[in-house]
């Protein structure tokens, strides 16, 4: 009892904290002996022999039972982020809960999707054929034929017209008039720019061939692209609901929407607060349909869409009702124990994990663990003196015991990685030994830090004399000017990562002859500084990142000014070697795994040496769920919103 009371009180210390997140590793510091990185080998990739599995622990009495054949029961999912009444797509609302609901629960029948293993495929339940043609002008056309029998939740047929309409709608200037919708999903379509600018009413890159077939043509300058299959990924929208009375007309120039298609119409069909498709979509084609949304409690109730044909593996949802309820990290485990929620997902901090494990020990709940596809990090600004020097960045890394940091920060539920990869990637799983042999792990070593700094010219004291241990901050002669080795660090308030770094870094850096100056601010201000839009520039920041399934380092490490900042090259690094190693990946065909793996390793090695970022920790996520839940199988790339289709509950 005391322990639980203590945990509740300790949790209060996190009350107003903004927790940064992230990370990956190959030197495990996890408390969980069973948990290893989940298997995420790409299907067509060579099988990873040492692929680690996600860890699931269930009490004995939950092992029995069979998956029902008709949907039953309800699952109350506790989410840290509020569910907003915003169900169109992440453009309108990208909060984590809405993102997952709109992408995987409510809307469906996307033509190209990612599998549980992270492989991009055409969904066989939706697409019967996909033909690819490389055109003479450098463009590429994907012709997609739909399966028979696809239905919207109101029993009307899902046709190619709905797919063509989706692309036209979401690229149109008319749609941009609906609450500032940023029509950016289909920017790669041939003719998008002219269509989006309103110069033409015909979208060249889209053709409606017949009721079951449509085509997508991709701009030449978007190719070649490693993930080009993803360009054929289209999610349908019901034209009869969103643009009633309108039709799609096809011509040689492309497809166009005929009829009363105006912003005013869309403001009613999409933007009406009561009946609009954005707030209350009643005709959808995902595994679940919206039943109700309670604005005062921000709870959403979803029920199985009986017309759903199943996910890519043909699996149909067997949980009848899903309810999304907001929980607080401080009390979420208590909610689980009290039965007010059935499932908690992606718990990454010890304050939540340990009481959850207590419940597992008591046999009250089950757990499933997996490593995060991303990490918490120190990001250097490589355009600022002195972190424009690779040696200075390396010296900072040598001043931090990252394993100890991960252990202290996460309570033992995190690991450390040494490159820009996640532990779920097949490339990592295939390269474990190679990584051990080839990547610098930057173990804490003050002498090594001194060595690299001295080699970089930081050999003077404040008087310009030779630097000796105990002289304090190192200096360097830069074009006749004596400059101190001062690192300006910007971090966010109430952030436990910053607090821990503050206890571990300054002294070690001082020993190496570096001075760390700290500025604490809020996140928007940090972002402004990181994008060089504020008045002050800093040398380093601590924050977190997650990888996309179309991870594209060729943008993130481009030397071209247009990619600097703005969420891309946030390290502002202009390094030709790093850029070349990243760009080499872009054009490798999707199915050429050998070439990809070789280029990937080269990129990781270059990155590890240039060190634009120091990875700090990669959380070991824990899902906790009541014993009535079965077949719960998540990973960092197959999250709760996908797993609900496979899971089932006892009534």
């Amino acid at each position, binding site marked *: 009892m005391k322990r639980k009371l203590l945990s509740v009180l300790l949790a209060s210390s996190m009350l107003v904290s903004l927790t940064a997140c992230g990370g990956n590793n190959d030197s495990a510091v996890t408390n969980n002996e069973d948990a290893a990185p989940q298997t995420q080998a790409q299907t067509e990739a060579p099988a990873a022999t040492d692929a680690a599995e996600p860890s699931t622990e269930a009490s004995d009495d939950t092992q029995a039972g069979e998956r029902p054949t008709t949907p039953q029961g309800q699952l109350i999912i506790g989410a840290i982020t509020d569910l907003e009444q915003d169900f169109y797509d992440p453009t*309108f609302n990208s909060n984590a809960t809405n993102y997952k609901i709109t992408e995987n629960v409510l809307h469906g029948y996307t033509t190209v999707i990612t599998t549980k293993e992270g492989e991009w495929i055409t969904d066989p339940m939706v697409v019967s054929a996909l033909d690819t043609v490389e055109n003479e002008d450098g463009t590429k056309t994907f012709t997609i034929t739909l399966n028979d029998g696809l239905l919207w939740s109101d029993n009307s047929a899902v046709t190619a017209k709905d797919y063509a309409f989706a692309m036209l709608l979401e690229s149109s200037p008319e749609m941009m008039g609906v609450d500032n919708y940023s029509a950016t999903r289909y920017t790669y379509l041939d003719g998008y720019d002219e269509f989006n600018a309103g110069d033409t009413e015909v979208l060249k890159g889209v053709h409606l061939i017949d009721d079951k077939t449509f085509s997508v043509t991709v701009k030449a300058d978007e190719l070649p692209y490693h993930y080009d299959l993803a360009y054929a990924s289209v999610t349908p929208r019901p034209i009869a609901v969103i643009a009633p009375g309108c039709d799609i007309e096809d011509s040689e120039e492309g497809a166009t929407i005929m009829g009363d298609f105006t912003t005013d119409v869309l403001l009613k069909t999409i933007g009406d607060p009561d009946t609009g498709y954005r707030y209350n979509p009643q005709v959808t084609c995902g595994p679940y349909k919206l039943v109700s949304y309670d604005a005062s409690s921000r709870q959403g109730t979803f029920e199985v869409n009986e017309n759903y044909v199943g996910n890519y593996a043909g699996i149909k949802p067997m949980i009848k009702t899903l309810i999304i309820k907001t929980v607080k990290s401080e009390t979420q485990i208590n909610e689980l124990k009290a039965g007010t929620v059935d499932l908690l997902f992606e718990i990454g901090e010890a304050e939540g994990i340990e009481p959850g494990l207590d419940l597992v020990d008591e046999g009250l709940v089950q757990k499933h663990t997996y490593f995060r596809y991303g990490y918490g990090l120190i990001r250097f600004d490589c355009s600022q003196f002195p972190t424009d020097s690779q040696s200075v960045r390396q010296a900072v890394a040598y001043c931090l015991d990252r394993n100890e940091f991960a252990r202290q920060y996460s309570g033992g539920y995190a690991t450390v990685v040494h490159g820009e990869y996640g532990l779920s990637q097949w490339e990592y799983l295939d390269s474990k030994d190679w990584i051990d042999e080839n990547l610098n792990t930057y173990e804490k070593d003050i002498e090594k830090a001194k060595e690299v700094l001295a080699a970089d010219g930081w050999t003077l004291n404040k008087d310009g004399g030779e630097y000796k241990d105990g002289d304090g901050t190192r200096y360097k002669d830069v074009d006749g000017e004596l400059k101190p080795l001062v690192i300006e660090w910007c971090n966010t308030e109430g952030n436990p990562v910053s607090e821990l770094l503050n206890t571990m870094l300054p002294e070690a850096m001082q020993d190496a002859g570096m001075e760390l100056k700290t500025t604490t601010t809020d996140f928007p201000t940090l972002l402004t500084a990181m994008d060089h839009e504020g008045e002050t520039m800093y040398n380093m920041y601590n924050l977190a990142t997650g990888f996309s399934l179309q991870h594209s380092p060729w943008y993130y490490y481009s030397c071209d000014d247009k990619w600097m900042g*703005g969420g891309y090259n946030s390290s502002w690094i202009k390094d030709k070697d790093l850029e070349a190693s990243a760009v080499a990946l872009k054009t490798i065909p999707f199915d050429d795994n050998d070439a990809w793996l070789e280029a990937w390793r080269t990129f990781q090695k270059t990155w590890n040496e240039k060190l634009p970022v120091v990875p700090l920790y990669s959380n070991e996520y824990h899902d906790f769920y009541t014993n009535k839940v079965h077949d719960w199988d998540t990973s960092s790339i197959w999250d709760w919103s996908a797993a609900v289709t496979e899971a089932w509950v006892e009534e």
Partner: protein
Amino acid sequence: MRTGRFLLKRLVYIIFVFFIISILMFAIYKAMPGDPVKMMLQGNIKPEVYQLQYDNMKEKLGLDKPVPVQYMKWITNMLRGDFGYSTEYRRPVKDVIGVPMRNTVLLNIFSMILVFAISIPLGITTAVKKNSILDKVVQVVTIVGYSIPSFVIALLAIYVFAIRIPLFPISGVRTAGFTGTGFDAFVDTAKHMALPVLVMSVGGIGSITRYVRASMIEALRMDYIRTARSKGLREKVVIYVHAFRNALIPVVTVTTWWLIGLFGGSVVIETIFVWDGLGKMMISGLNQRDFSVVLAMQMFYVILSLAGNVLMDIAYTLVDPRVKLEN
């Protein structure tokens, strides 16, 4: 006549102060680092498309204009009842602020009723029984009540009344999947409201009890109380009619601020109990640089505060005839 002139003067004063504060607030928020359009356009959008979208968005929201022009547009729209556009929710502010305001007011009304229902009788009783054991116990408890931070009380309350003795839900406004209406819905919400109301009330009960006690002790020392007693009036009449009425001035002050506070959300309480109110919305708005939401709320509070001062002055005259508005 004098009262009318006084009220007119105060109205002019309110308008003047309102505009000054509006300029200051607007300038402060505009000077804050962070770009609301940037916060809107999160996600990986290719640079050239991003720039186009960014410029379009900025123009549509009027953020490309000089700050004085932006202010004029904002204040004009505000006076017409158009509170602007929420960049966080991509909806008009009036559409996003209604539900949280209803939740906050609901919570605060019940809390206020509880606070006054307990603290006024308790304050009077402890004043009358000054230095008794009851008085000493209440003194200690009330000090503890308003000294302990509300988040500690909240977590303790959750532990005791929702975890150890599961009388109330841990958090939320409604039971997940609840479909009842009418009385059932009220009961369900009331159960969820119980703990936050209790926690919010602890501090209030502590402070107002002490206010009332101190004020009553002061009043009970007055000559007119001795006179009333010597006239043979019943003790209840002496206390509630003669002493309490004269002790009301500080109570009126506190009550007025509580009434104003009805519309101010408590960030801590709302966050811990996942009660979707204005406090949470304000913090979220600040973090997202959703200035339209934040400014609308701030200006609403400014109006409430200014109007509250006038109400307080009027209330003083009602409880104490010696107070004249022209004074």
